[in-house]
């Protein structure tokens, strides 16, 4: 939405964080699209709903809308979820 947005490079099949609401709910047990994710790479906070999401990657990849860095990766293997959230500096959701 601003000049630093990677909008022009985002492919047509990229989705947004609404698409990972179900996966994140399974992991955290609460609604997470309204959580604020802060990018560890560029430091920009934003709603999970507004991140860039790729479901066609092996697993689920969530990227920063400002700098396109990877924020979260969720890979499902059999009956377990493998998480890599190392791209996040913080993830905040209102309690209760």
């Amino acid at each position, binding site marked *: *939405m601003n000049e630093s947005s990677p*909008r022009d490079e*985002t*492919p*047509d*099949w*990229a*989705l*947004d*964080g*609404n*698409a990972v*609401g*179900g996966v994140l*709910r*399974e992991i955290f047990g609460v*609604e997470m*699209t*309204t959580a604020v994710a802060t990018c560890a790479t560029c430091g920009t906070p934003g*709603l*999970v*709903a*507004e991140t860039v999401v790729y*479901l066609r990657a092996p697993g689920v990849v969530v990227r920063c809308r400002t700098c396109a860095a990877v924020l979260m990766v969720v890979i499902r293997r059999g009956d377990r979820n493998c998480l890599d959230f190392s791209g996040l500096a913080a993830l905040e959701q209102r309690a209760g």
Partner: protein
Amino acid sequence: MRTIVLRLPEWAGHQAGQHLDVRLTAEDGYTAERSYSIASAPGEPVAITVERLDDGEVSPYLTVELRPGDEIEVRGPIGGYFVWPAEEPAAELLLVAGGSGVVPFRSMLRHRRNVGSAVPVRLLYSARSLPDVIYRAELDAAADGVRVIYTLTRRQPPGWAGHTGRVGPGLLSEVAWPASAAPLAYVCGPTPFVEVVAAELVDLGYPPLRVKTERYGGTEGSG
């Protein structure tokens, strides 16, 4: 296109604009999961509207093979961002739909009617042609205070007096509530559609926080 009503005994109730995930598991254990916006209003039986995509893994099953009484695995309701709580301070509502992106707006419009809300609504709906318009009879009979504006991008019936072509700055500035009224906008459709419309609304002066977006994939996904 098929609308499917689900009987969900343990459903916790949903908000207008939320979606659910459908998971299909093959005999060999392979699973495919897709998100579908909920087409019905809170309090109504849960319904989804599924567009059949020939290369899809889930939609051919849901639109062709599924029979009344069959069981499917459903997770939801999901989402707290792309929702319209009717009880919020009454801001004028702008809904912009591309294709099956109209599905969550059907839930919002029915919710508005069911709770007796008087919030003024404009729905701008971009479809390829008139037969591609989903819920047309229902939308044409929209309640007082709801204006539905179609634009037909590929084919128009003879004598069509409505809008044609894609949603761009011209049509938006004509149809959208002025930004000075502090309206609330929801945009749902394929990713390129949402990107363009949301950016145009911000250019028209809508604060980014008042423009809520939901994108779905071109191949298969939620509407």
